[in-house]
């Protein structure tokens, strides 16, 4: 369960998010919509703990009852997916997944775990390949697998579909939502495209308050 409690987010110039509260249960999706510049990505950065200096943020963020708002990113257990897949180019697909997987067990067991994840995503045998040799859709799927193998307690999606072409987009969207349900963790999706919103999802719409000083 991810709880946002009275979140307000502002720059010295204007208020981006005013007093937003939401509760996202495991396997559910919260969609944050708004024009570009409305503060969607800043809200995600606040949740992941990567907000740059110069923002003023108030309110509480609780993940499974744990207050995470003041923790450094590395201790929040919140996964993050960007528009770009950001696969590490100096590692093979398998190494990318192993990097995410928590330590413990023999290397063979960890490899088997990563390869099983690849197989479930229809990417059997792609482990030894280099990221640059995969298609855009394959890379996107690997980056989702990587984020989930790190066993996050929540997943943040920063317009992950916007770079893909229409046909691919539909399939990848279904793939991501299915994984989120399967994993049973709350997810927050930021987008400006109404088509990205699945039926029954909670939606928050951010509108820029232009007149605010």
């Amino acid at each position, binding site marked *: 369960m991810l709880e946002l409690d009275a979140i307000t987010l502002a720059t010295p110039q204007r208020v981006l998010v005013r007093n937003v509260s939401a509760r996202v249960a495991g396997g559910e999706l919260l969609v944050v919509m708004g024009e570009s510049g409305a503060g969607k990505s800043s809200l995600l950065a606040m949740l992941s703990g*990567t907000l740059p200096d110069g923002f003023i943020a108030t309110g509480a963020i609780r993940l499974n009852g744990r207050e995470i708002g003041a923790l450094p990113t590395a201790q929040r*257990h919140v996964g993050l997916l*960007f528009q770009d897949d*950001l696969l590490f180019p100096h590692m093979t697909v398998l190494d990318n997944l192993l990097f*995410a997987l928590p330590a413990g067990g023999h*290397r063979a067991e*960890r490899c088997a775990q990563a390869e099983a994840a690849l197989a479930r995503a229809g990417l059997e045998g792609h482990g030894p390949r280099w990221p640059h040799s995969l298609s855009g859709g394959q890379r996107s799927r690997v980056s989702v697998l990587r984020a989930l193998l790190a066993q996050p307690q929540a997943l943040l999606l920063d317009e992950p579909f916007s770079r893909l072409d229409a046909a691919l987009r539909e399939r990848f969207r279904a793939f991501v939502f299915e994984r989120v349900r399967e994993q049973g963790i709350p997810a927050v999706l930021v987008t400006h495209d109404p088509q990205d919103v699945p039926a029954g999802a909670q939606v928050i719409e951010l509108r820029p308050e232009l007149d605010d000083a």
Partner: protein
Amino acid sequence: MDTTLRPVKAARGWGWALPAALFVLPLAAALWLGAAEAVDARAWSHLLSDTQFAAALAESLWIAVASTMLSATLCVLIVTRLHGTRAWQRVQGALGGWLAVPHAAFAIGLALLLMPSGFIARLLAGVAGWDAPPDIATVRDPWGLGLIAALVFKELPFLLWNVAAQLRRVGQGAELERQLQIAATMGYSRRTAWARLLWPQLLPRLALPLLAVGAYGFTVVDMALVIGPARPPTLAVLAWQWLLDANAATNHQGAAAALCLTALVAALAAAVVLAWHAVRPAARQRWTRGDRPSAARRFEWPWAGTGAAVYLAVVLSLLFMSIAGVWTFPSLWPSHWTLQAWAGVAHSSSTVGVTAVLAIVSASTGLVLAVAWMETAPAHWDARAAGAVFAPMLVPGVLLVAGLYQLSLHSGIDGRFAGLWLAHSLYTAPYAMVALSPAYRGFDPRYQQTAHALGRSHAAFLLRVKWPMLLAPLAAAFAVAFAVSVTQYLPTQFIGAGRYATVTTEALTLASGGQRNLAAAFALLQALLPAIVFGFAWWLGRRQARRLHAVAMA
């Protein structure tokens, strides 16, 4: 209607051949003649049986390996700790000033600080109760520690500057920053993320700067003459002394030593590449082990402050020494001050004149060659030209200078200004190219299309649009080339046959002759002349930026 589509071929003439030939032909001839000097069986047998050879070689290897490892380690440590903090901004802001202090001037200043009668020993004398300078070699020590320290302080800013340039590259910097964020969401500390993600990607891209640092430490002559070990000196210094010898057989032995250094640079580079490939599999196992070492908060060393303090101390010690009169040992202050050294500098004002004229002429030549190349050759040819461009930076100075001397002998310009001009231009051109190419190659091609679409000639486009817009980077590249010329020691001394004195040759001759006051004054000038030109370039750039800004605001 039947139309055939033909690929449109850009009209590209042979214009590129002229700047390429003007640079590559003398360079290749010099390398060939230098190597030819060394192809002499007797010279090699003399070299290998020389009593100093083995010790000098071991010393050079030790100095090169120690200074390179230390600079690289400190660079990794500093960037890992500081990147993303305000301290990193401070370090980046200070890099330009640190880089602008010439190697030889830095070595002379550091030697003045460290020597047994230097300021540091005087400070210690107060505590330890010494009344005479300690009887230990603190400057030309047999372990080369003084030279290693000088090299590390000079090379570290160069490496940091290269890392900063990689991180600033368009697109790449932001991508690396987001990779760090991804790693953080997976529970990795910043330090572990740097070690497993960023350095494995950055280090291969730093191969060339690291090679330059290693090759420089292995073959440097000017710094080693001031602060390097004396008995025996390093192999590069030995080669230099042999090249200067009046005996032709000894000259051949010097050329053989220079070729030996060159071969060893290549062998060391190959060894490092092989070692990298050998450790990579084990390193990859480590990167992907999945453990998340906690980020233990340790004491943060004030890196920017340390660097600033060392450079300030070095420059101040030069200034201090250039005006110090009689100065008995344990006292911290000279008993009187004197402007004698500066009067001496004023007296030999032709030295400053020769330095400046030579630097202006060869920096202009270098800049013209670089611009001519980039105007006539497509950008993707730069990679092909890289071998020639980097040769003067990577080939040991003693070998290139030996060849340049032969070349100037054959063409009758040895000991003449033309010989110095040629030699200096071979060094200024590549630096001008490296300094200018990011801005010049990054120039938006649509301006050219726009100018041509407006019916203006190509010459008008260059003179009225492109070069005025690129004024700041052109001035900066000129300043870099100017500094490169001012600080040349080997070619100036050798090709000039001692007939042309520059601030650099004077500073080094006087420093090794123990004339500290005058040496300090000339060393300061060696730093000051390029600083004036850098300042002018900076002023031009600012004026330009303000003008463009004013236009944008109007």
